[in-house]
């Protein structure tokens, strides 16, 4: 067994040894160890390299505040998690972890050349340096910065693990299972109501696991803890959740918990959830997050072997690990003495206790002397040495200017304590400065929340227990015997004879921010603490400055010359600790990430080789390529087949809204610029919908099924917003109208049949409808059956050909499609996709809202004044159409474009100018909105929004492109069959 193992303490079971590898080397730890404690047992302090200077770093803490010991946790392909804190990674047989931010290895790191030149890398270095020449930006600087940036490597494969998520409810949620949290849970459990007690560690107990010689109600701490946990486990209204981090606190007592389910188990196969996100709505939240010890800021304080006093105490008492053979102590607070005594009592040599204060309490002094420890008051550490591990320190006494060297392999430090305000701040609870503690503590709550124990500034076991009891409504006073927590002083950096610019006194270990960086930021004009934070990056690493924020604040406050309470605290934001993307995603990955809407005929399209395009949340068949065809060829074929004979198209994605009620026509008249009064049942009309600001919002064919019933269609992407728009007006502006709205988009499958043979195809299958042109003219709707299925049959055309849109209940869609496709073989029926639909409609100059309009186009701009009723008293958008800007000359108009070279197809979105040789910036006239190759016409066709376009008919414009200027002529945007004669095929 390792000499560093102190058996018989805490949670570690040395009877169960566990093998693990770190950086490829095998070590042995034991059941109950964390990776950090197991490495320490093996005498390994060096666990990482720092972010900027690549300085060798050892573990500083023992919990989730750890800034240095970040490792990459590896469980096989894709199961790689970077930046895991070694202090939070539980050991299991075969655990594999690697250090980060080093090339080629931890002991010899090429990146450390930054350290040698660190005087050239002050705060804002990147902002100041990587500016000129411009040609270096993407060739030199960016690759350099990218190479240097980041900590652990991003995984290269998909994460195969599963993640769970759930909602939960309770009357009392307690965050933190230390003495305060457990006392609160005991009382809350008795009072009834659901209680959830969470703690991020594997073992519940918090600081109870780190103390050695205290008693609660006459029993040893360990026994009290065991008994209390047993009581809580038995209570059926209490849920205990170890390995669970409260990562964020949102409005109305909504707290997110991230539970680690398998990271501590050996040989876990992919399958069971690795982590679970619990979204808890709590009646009351009791925050007992505890406090974090503050490091001291002194020259060389980042050498491996230097750690927090409380961490050393935890390693000893909880994990049975001595952090070194000779451990020096540097402190400005009484609490470090108890850590030193625990270590000394475990036969670890304490060569010296250095206290920056001139005096300490006589009681402490007696205890120090009783143990025969050398005590130096009014002194500090001015230097540390040792390449990859602390070998000695130089003690400096400013009063006498004397220096002394002491050999040691570890140094523990304490600069006092910082209450953890993270969750409290998430909940927007107020904070106030406490001069005695030299820390911020909670003030007025914003939610039904209370902070208790150390995170409320009440340090010590007894204070925590009583606060816990009280928070849950109890009145008990615990009888506690414990060493006094004591007091301390806060210094922003320790006195030194070495001038400040030559020191390496780190404040933020993870982001390599030193005391002089913060002073420099202030000197360069950054006075707000939020600016200092961003300029120096202090507190912006993955630990969010858990150990560094208060020290940075002290230094900045002194440099700015303002009292600290006037400088303010930077904002804490969720998550409290780094959280995997998997936890947030939960079940919603792969096909559930952004579910795809599919039409009833989607399967047929897939089987027949459709290429898809996404339209809103739908996937729609884009085109149906035959062997050897590219998109261009396929679309040309589909267009020709439809114009020559017969095309079949899935139009099911069209939005559909059923507008029903005695006042349906009144309502429709208000919602559309179109007039509906004269439309008889059985008729269809093109409807144009405006927003109140007068711009085109949506369009679609509307069928009047009966006096009081309309079948409204909308654009595919517009369906939800049009429905909302209608509901909004109906409920809030026109509530006197007796109308009901129902979204029926998914109730109908819609098959569009277009081409000269359209009527011939459907005729044999239709019953109850006279299909003759006289009885069933263009823009009409009839109800009957097709193949025996109830149908709303529209005679409409978005292609310019004779067309029908067959609506049937959606589950019959595919069967009907297959029947028609089979029957259509005699006419060489051709399935076509959205691209062909777009080409055919563009040849006719039919607009697509959102493509040819952009939210600033009025009906007049689009050449559709005919769709605005002249006689209506009111409709949405009517008044705005008279706004001065909407009627003035020189607005952009929707026109057609024909390129000079008919083979040239313009690029959609391309800008339009009159004279390509004018000086830059050029006068832009507008842009191309739609552009296609028209197989039917043998030339390209385009639509464009052009300033004053209606008055430029026949004029040439220019589209400047990278490989030359394209000349095009402005024409009317109807290219094919302008008289509409093709609709009249008999």
């Amino acid at each position, binding site marked *: 067994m390792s000499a560093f193992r102190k058996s018989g303490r805490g949670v570690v079971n040395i009877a169960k040894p566990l093998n693990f590898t770190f950086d490829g080397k095998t070590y042995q730890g034991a059941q109950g160890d964390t990776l950090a404690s197991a490495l320490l047992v093996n005498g390994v302090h060096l666990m990482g390299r720092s972010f900027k200077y690549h300085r060798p770093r050892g573990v500083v803490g023992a919990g989730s505040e750890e800034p240095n010991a970040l490792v990459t946790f590896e469980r096989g392909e894709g199961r790689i998690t970077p930046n895991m804190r070694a202090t939070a990674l539980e050991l299991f047989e075969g655990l594999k972890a690697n250090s980060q931010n080093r090339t080629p290895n931890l002991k010899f790191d090429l990146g450390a050349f930054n350290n040698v030149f660190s005087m050239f890398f002050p705060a804002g270095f990147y902002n100041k340096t990587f500016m000129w020449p411009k040609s270096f930006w993407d060739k030199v600087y960016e690759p350099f910065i990218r190479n240097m940036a980041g900590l652990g490597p991003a995984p290269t494969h998909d994460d195969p693990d599963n993640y769970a998520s759930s909602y939960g409810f309770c009357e009392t949620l307690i965050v933190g299972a230390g003495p305060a949290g457990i006392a609160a849970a005991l009382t809350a459990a008795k009072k009834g109501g659901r209680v959830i007690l969470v703690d991020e560690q594997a073992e519940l107990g918090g600081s109870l696991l780190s103390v050695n010689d205290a008693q609660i109600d006459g029993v040893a701490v360990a026994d009290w803890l065991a008994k209390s946990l047993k009581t809580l486990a038995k209570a059926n209204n209490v849920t205990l959740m170890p390995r669970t981090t409260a990562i964020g606190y*949102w*409005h*109305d007592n*909504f707290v997110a918990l991230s539970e680690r389910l398998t990271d501590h188990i050996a040989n876990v196969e992919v399958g069971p959830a690795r982590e679970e996100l619990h*979204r808890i*709505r709590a009646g009351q939240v009791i925050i007992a997050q505890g406090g974090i010890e503050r490091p001291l800021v002194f020259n060389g304080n980042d050498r491996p072997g230097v750690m927090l006093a409380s961490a050393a105490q935890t390693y000893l008492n909880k994990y049975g690990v001595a952090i070194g053979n000779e451990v020096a102590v540097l402190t400005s607070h009484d609490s470090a003495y108890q850590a030193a005594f625990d270590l000394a009592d475990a036969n670890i040599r304490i060569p010296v206790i250095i206290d920056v204060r001139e005096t300490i309490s006589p009681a402490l002094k007696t205890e120090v002397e009783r143990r025969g420890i050398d005590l130096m008051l009014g002194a500090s550490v001015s230097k540390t040495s040792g390449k990859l591990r602390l070998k000695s320190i130089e003690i400096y006494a400013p009063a006498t200017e004397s220096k002394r060297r002491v050999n040691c392999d570890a140094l523990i430090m304490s600069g006092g304590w910082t209450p953890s305000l993270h969750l409290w701040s998430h909940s*927007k609870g107020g904070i106030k400065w406490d001069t005695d503690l030299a820390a911020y503590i909670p003030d007025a709550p*914003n939610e039904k929340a209370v902070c208790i124990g150390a995170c409320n500034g009440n340090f010590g076991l007894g204070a925590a227990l009583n606060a816990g009891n009280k928070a849950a409504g109890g009145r008990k006073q615990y009888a506690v015997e414990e060493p006094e927590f004591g007091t301390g002083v806060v210094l922003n950096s320790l006195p030194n004879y070495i001038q400040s610019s030559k020191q390496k006194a780190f404040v933020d270990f993870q982001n390599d921010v030193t005391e002089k960086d913060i002073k420099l930021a202030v000197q360069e004009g950054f006075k707000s603490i939020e600016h200092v934070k961003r300029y120096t990056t202090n507190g912006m690493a993955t630990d969010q400055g858990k150990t560094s924020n208060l020290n940075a604040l002290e230094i900045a406050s002194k440099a700015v010359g303002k009292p600290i309470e006037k400088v303010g605290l930077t904002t804490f934001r969720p998550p409290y600790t780094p959280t995997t993307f998997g936890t947030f995603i939960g079940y919603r990955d792969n096909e559930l990430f952004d579910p795809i809407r599919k039409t009833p005929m989607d399967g047929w399209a897939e089987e027949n080789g459709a290429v898809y395009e996404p339209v809103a949340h739908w996937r729609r068949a884009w085109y149906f390529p035959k062997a050897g065809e590219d998109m261009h060829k396929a679309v040309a074929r589909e267009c020709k087949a439809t114009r020559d004979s017969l095309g079949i198209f899935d139009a099911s994605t069209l939005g559909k809204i059923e507008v029903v009620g005695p006042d349906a026509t009144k309502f429709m008249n208000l919602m559309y610029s179109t007039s509906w009064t004269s439309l008889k049942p059985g008729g269809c009309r093109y409807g144009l919908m405006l927003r*109140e*600001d007068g711009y085109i919002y949506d369009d679609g064919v509307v069928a009047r099924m009966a006096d009081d019933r309309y079948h409204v269609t909308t654009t595919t992407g517009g369906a939800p917003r049009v429905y*909302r728009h209608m*509901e*909004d007006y109906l*409920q*809030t*502006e026109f*509530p006197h109208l007796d109308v009901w709205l129902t979204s029926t988009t998914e109730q109908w499958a819609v098959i569009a049949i277009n081409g000269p043979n359209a009527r011939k195809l459907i005729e044999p299958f239709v019953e109850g409808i006279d299909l003759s042109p006289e009885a069933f003219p263009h823009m009409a709707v009839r109800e009957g059956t097709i193949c025996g299925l109830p149908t709303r049959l529209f005679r409409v055309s978005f292609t310019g050909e004779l067309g029908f849109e067959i609506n049937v209940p959606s589950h019959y869609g595919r069967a009907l499609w297959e029947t028609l496709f089979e029957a259509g073989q005699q006419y060489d029926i051709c399935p076509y996709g959205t691209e062909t639909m777009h080409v055919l409609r563009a040849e006719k100059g039919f607009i697509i809202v959102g493509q040819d309009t952009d939210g600033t186009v009025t009906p007049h701009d689009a050449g559709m004044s005919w769709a605005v009723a002249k006689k209506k*008293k*009111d409709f949405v958008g*009517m*008044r*705005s159409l*008279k*706004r*001065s800007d909407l009627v003035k000359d020189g607005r952009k108009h929707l026109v057609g474009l024909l390129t000079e070279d008919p083979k040239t197809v313009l690029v959609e979105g391309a800008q339009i100018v009159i004279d390509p040789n004018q000086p830059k910036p050029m006068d832009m006239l507008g842009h191309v909105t739609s552009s296609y190759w028209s197989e039917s016409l043998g030339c390209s066709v385009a639509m464009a929004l052009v300033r004053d376009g209606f008055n430029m008919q026949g004029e040439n414009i220019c589209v400047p492109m990278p490989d030359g200027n394209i000349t095009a002529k402005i024409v009317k945007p109807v290219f094919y069959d302008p008289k509409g004669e093709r609709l009249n095929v008999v």
Partner: protein
Amino acid sequence: MLLIHCPYCDEKRAEIEFAYAGEAHIARPNAATQGEMSDEDWSQYMFIRQNARGEHAERWWHNAGCNMFFNAIRNTVTDKFVMSYKMGQKRPSTKQIEAAKK
């Protein structure tokens, strides 16, 4: 995540069931009034909003619930809902808002 009281369901439901719908109590002028409104008046109705700091009367839509639009008083500084009420009801007085806070 906020809990929002829907006055039609008379229940507090999670924020994800709702959609924000802008400032409340901006009545659309009727046809006759519209005809008399200057562009300036019309732009006030169309575009100018209070952007209140503090208690704000606003519209919410219970779109994943009962589908009803309703009004609510929410504090834009603290993001806390003070009260909600049915569409068509008058904006609560300062007194009523203060009472609802208790």
